[in-house]
């Protein structure tokens, strides 16, 4: 009986205790349920995203660069098929071993191997690195033969930049190379489309127009497993090629210009005087941009860098030279515009025995025996220094500077298109005070009148100056990329309509001009100067008379220039050495500016030969050949212009 009560008691205890346990279990199930609810219902999206992040991995595919052509659609920067070998890191069991094997098959150099190791350091374990960008066919086929021994190595057919006219256009088109950290930081477009192995423009149009040329990268999305192995392709957003660019360059003229400059240091620029299209911008010596595409070797680089004629310098727009006598038409124009003198003003040039004197300083003409009494036309034609010393003195440097700037000197011709372009110097009293913190001397005005002294110009500026004189005194917009907005007929008719309109004296004040605005006061002054340039080339005693074209359709007008690189001492003057007898570095720069055809001007050009001696001997003859070619190709160019206009 007692036992029974006891049992009943025990039974009760057990049941009570069970009840507590069951209650606790229900509570715990509640906790687990709410946790599951929280994970799977409330935060589902968060975990879905995380799950996709886990399983989906993106690979960027490189975009193809846009193609660059000349005005006539000749390809000057192309994409070429190349053979490459890539290494997929996740498939490589022993990296050192793989590199060692590859080294034997495709003959990698030590510095290349060093670069590969650097690349590997920066890569993620599932990345693919490029071992060699440009294999020869024999290396590529050898690689394919040994492929089974090389885990992770992938032979790849890719494209890379190729410049078919290698040396001829490097200063215009530029070249590409691997994107540096700086490139990526500087350009958003590069940052957005960066893919290992992406090539970006380093200089030239490739650099300036990188944003248009690069294109957009593609995206391949793969499902991957936990170890990063690709399981399946989910989507492929195809890459797009960059914009194709048509430049204003005429390949044939460019090639001729480079040919004419061969073995010399110098520049040739050709421009359409109405549209501002740069038809040629040659700089010599040149180098091969193709060498840069896959990274230039130290040996090649040193060869280019140590060349005394400085191939890396784009002389057309980054080379600074005294304009010499090529400034004289502008000095004459300034004096006429301000009414300082008239065209009949005469100065007597009496030779080296009776030089021009100012406060005891003596200034000589280049002509030993003197020119005699010179009028303005003759002074331009025969390039008399004495005459322009006097004109400059009367005019004053500030007025000269104002007109020089107006016609294109002292500022960048292509604005910010090329980072290396130089502004040059057009000195004035204010400039000297500000920059050199010194007062101006009258003697400095005198030598500025013959384009010596502080004044510094680029050949492209001289070409623009000539164009803006030859087109009747209108500001144009120089450009290198074909711009369909430029309406040639509209520009021409505007110039024609304003030719005989008179304007107020205010036009001679310092002011900013918009494109295609009139720059002159009196059209007769311009006409006079252009006619004097005609005389310089086409009449006897003209400095470029020997380089003239006799045939009417090729007739052009020009002005020579010979710019001193050092002061000529009385002793030098006595010796009067031949060019060959002077040390190269001390020889004068030869310059020539011209426009053609004379009766209906359309093209301007500038020629510069560094240390070439006199402008009439070294520079002007090149213009003769160039102008024939330019004018022969005129019809063809106009036809293309018309076609392009019709397309638009």
């Amino acid at each position, binding site marked *: 009986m007692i036992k029974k009560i*006891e*049992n009943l*008691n*025990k*039974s009760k*205890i*057990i049941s009570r*205790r*069970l009840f*507590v*346990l*069951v209650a606790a*279990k229900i509570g*715990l*199930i509640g*906790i*687990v*349920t709410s*946790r*599951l*609810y929280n*994970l*799977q*219902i409330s*935060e*589902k999206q*968060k*975990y*879905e995203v*995380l*799950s996709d992040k*886990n*399983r989906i991995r993106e690979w960027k595919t490189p975009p193809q660069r846009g193609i660059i052509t000349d005005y006539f659609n000749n390809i000057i920067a192309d994409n070429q098929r190349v053979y490459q070998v890539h290494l997929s890191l996740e498939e490589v069991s022993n990296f050192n071993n793989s590199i060692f094997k590859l080294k034997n098959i495709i003959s990698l150099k030590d510095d290349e191997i060093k670069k590969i190791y650097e690349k590997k350091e920066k890569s993620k374990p599932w990345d693919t690195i490029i071992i060699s960008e440009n294999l020869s066919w024999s290396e590529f086929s050898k690689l394919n033969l040994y492929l089974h021994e090389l885990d992770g190595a992938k032979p790849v057919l890719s494209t890379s930049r190729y410049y078919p006219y290698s040396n001829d256009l490097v200063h215009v088109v530029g070249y590409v190379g691997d994107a540096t950290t700086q490139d990526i930081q500087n350009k958003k477009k590069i940052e957005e489309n960066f893919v290992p192995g992406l090539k970006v423009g380093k200089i030239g149009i490739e650099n300036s127009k990188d944003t248009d040329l690069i294109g957009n990268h593609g995206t391949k999305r793969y*499902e*991957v*497993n*936990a*170890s990063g192995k690709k*399981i399946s392709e989910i989507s492929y957003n195809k890459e797009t090629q960059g914009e194709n660019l048509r430049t204003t360059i005429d390949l044939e003229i460019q090639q001729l210009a480079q040919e004419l400059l061969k073995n010399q240091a110098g520049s040739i620029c050709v421009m359409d005087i109405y549209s501002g299209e740069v038809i040629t911008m040659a700089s010599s010596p040149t180098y091969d941009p193709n060498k840069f595409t896959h990274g230039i070797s130290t040996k090649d680089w040193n060869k280019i860098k140590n060349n005394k004629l400085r191939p890396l310098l784009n002389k057309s727009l980054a080379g600074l030279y005294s304009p010499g006598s090529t400034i004289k038409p502008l000095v004459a124009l300034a004096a006429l515009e301000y009414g300082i003198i008239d065209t009949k003003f005469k100065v007597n040039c009496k030779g080296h025995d009776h030089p021009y004197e100012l406060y005891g300083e003596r200034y000589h003409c280049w002509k030993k025996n003197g020119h005699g009494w010179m009028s303005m036309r003759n002074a331009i034609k025969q390039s008399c220094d004495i005459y322009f010393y006097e004109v400059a003195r009367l005019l004053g440097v500030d007025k000269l500077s104002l007109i020089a700037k107006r016609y294109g000197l002292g500022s960048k011709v292509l604005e910010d298109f090329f980072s290396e372009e130089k502004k040059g110097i057009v000195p004035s009293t204010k400039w000297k005070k500000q920059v050199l913190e010194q007062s101006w001397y009258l003697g400095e005005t005198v030598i500025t009148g013959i384009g010596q002294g502080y004044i510094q110009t680029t050949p492209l500026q001289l070409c623009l100056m000539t164009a803006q004189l030859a087109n009747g005194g209108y500001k144009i917009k120089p450009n290198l990329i074909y711009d369909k907005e430029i309406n040639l007929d509209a520009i021409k008719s505007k110039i024609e309509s304003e030719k005989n309109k008179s304007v107020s004296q205010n036009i001679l004040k310092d002011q900013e001009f918009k494109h295609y605005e009139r720059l002159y006061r009196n059209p007769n002054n311009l006409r006079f100067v252009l006619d004097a340039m005609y005389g310089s080339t086409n009449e006897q005693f003209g400095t470029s008379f020997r380089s003239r074209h006799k045939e009417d359709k090729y007739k052009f007008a020009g002005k020579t220039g010979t710019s001193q690189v050092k002061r000529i001492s009385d002793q030098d003057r006595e010796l009067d050495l031949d060019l060959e007898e002077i040390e190269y570095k001390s020889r004068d720069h030869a310059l020539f500016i011209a426009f053609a055809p004379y009766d209906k001007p359309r093209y301007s050009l500038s020629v510069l030969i560094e240390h070439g001696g006199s402008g009439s001997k070294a520079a002007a003859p090149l213009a003769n050949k160039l102008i024939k070619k330019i004018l022969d190709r005129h019809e063809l160019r106009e036809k293309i212009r018309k076609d392009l206009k019709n397309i638009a």
Partner: protein
Amino acid sequence: MILSTSLNSTSYSFIDKLKAIDYFLIIIVAIIGSMSVFSIYSTESGNFSFYTKNHLTRFLVFFSMFLVLSFVRVSFWYRQAYIFYILGILLLILVIFFGISASGSKRWINLFIMNLQPSELMKIAIIVCFARYYHRIQSSDIQSYKYLLQPIILLLIPCYLVITQPDLGTAILIAGSGLAIIWLAGLNLKYFIYTGLILLVSLPFVISILKPYQKSRILTFFNPDRDPLGAGYQIIQSKIAIGSGGLLGKGFLQGTQSYLEFLPEKHTDFIFTLFSEEFGFVGSMLLILLYALLIYRIIRIGFSSRSFFAKLYCYGFASALFLYIFVNIAMVVGLLPIVGAPLPIMSYGGSSMLSIMLGLSVVMSCKIYSRDSIGN
């Protein structure tokens, strides 16, 4: 087995026995079993290969064993209870000398047909042993020091042996199962509170003797992002898998986390994660419901049993089963640190399956022979 009738007065005809079987329980076990086979099949990305084959075989063998052993009279289990305990301890000691090591711990004995994990068997042995122990003790005596110390020693021996393997998870489960029965038997609440306090005070000491990987697991539990690719990886990936499953799941064989191998230990401890990823919140709740029903049926059997042994065993086993399930699920959803505890029936693993099925046969035996009073 049939010979062991002498002690018992009640006799049962075969028909009686068949009638007494809890078919509902068997069906639940069969359903969970088939779900587990499909889950393992999914871990192999829908290939009927090694794991699935093994798991299916084991389930079928041990399930049949459960059905057959159900007919063993409950008094047999009662009488052999201490023998089982001693056998369990002996096997654990055997592990120390002849055990096979895997990933830093020595838990298994090679039986040629399978690797036996004695600690899994110990989980059942401790319940049977304690059920017998408290079967005869009167409730008034339970609070005495003698009856307090004896079970604690009985519990500490296997726990110590398992911790040193080391296998913290199983040790906790063994301790938990034992404590559940001590609680059911009616030990005063204050002792549990004291034990809790002592544990709390000795926590710093316990932490200092933990293995580095155990420490890192605990630290990781509090902050999984501490080492997302190392110690925190499992729990982060598990939560991602479960969370991305959503309401209805990604579908059978569509669990990306698992087939892309982001999920670690997906056959064993993380099987619930895979299941939850593929069948979502609804599927998970269904599985939990099935487990709840199973536990309910076991408690119900205990309730209708006459003997204290049967009652204590069923309640104890139900509590232990709940504990295994709770610890496993709480672990994979990030509520508890990862300690290594399989999900009953669902997880791949022979010893776990064996011990659960063995435990269930004792339950069923209690049902079939519910009228046995085993002399109380």
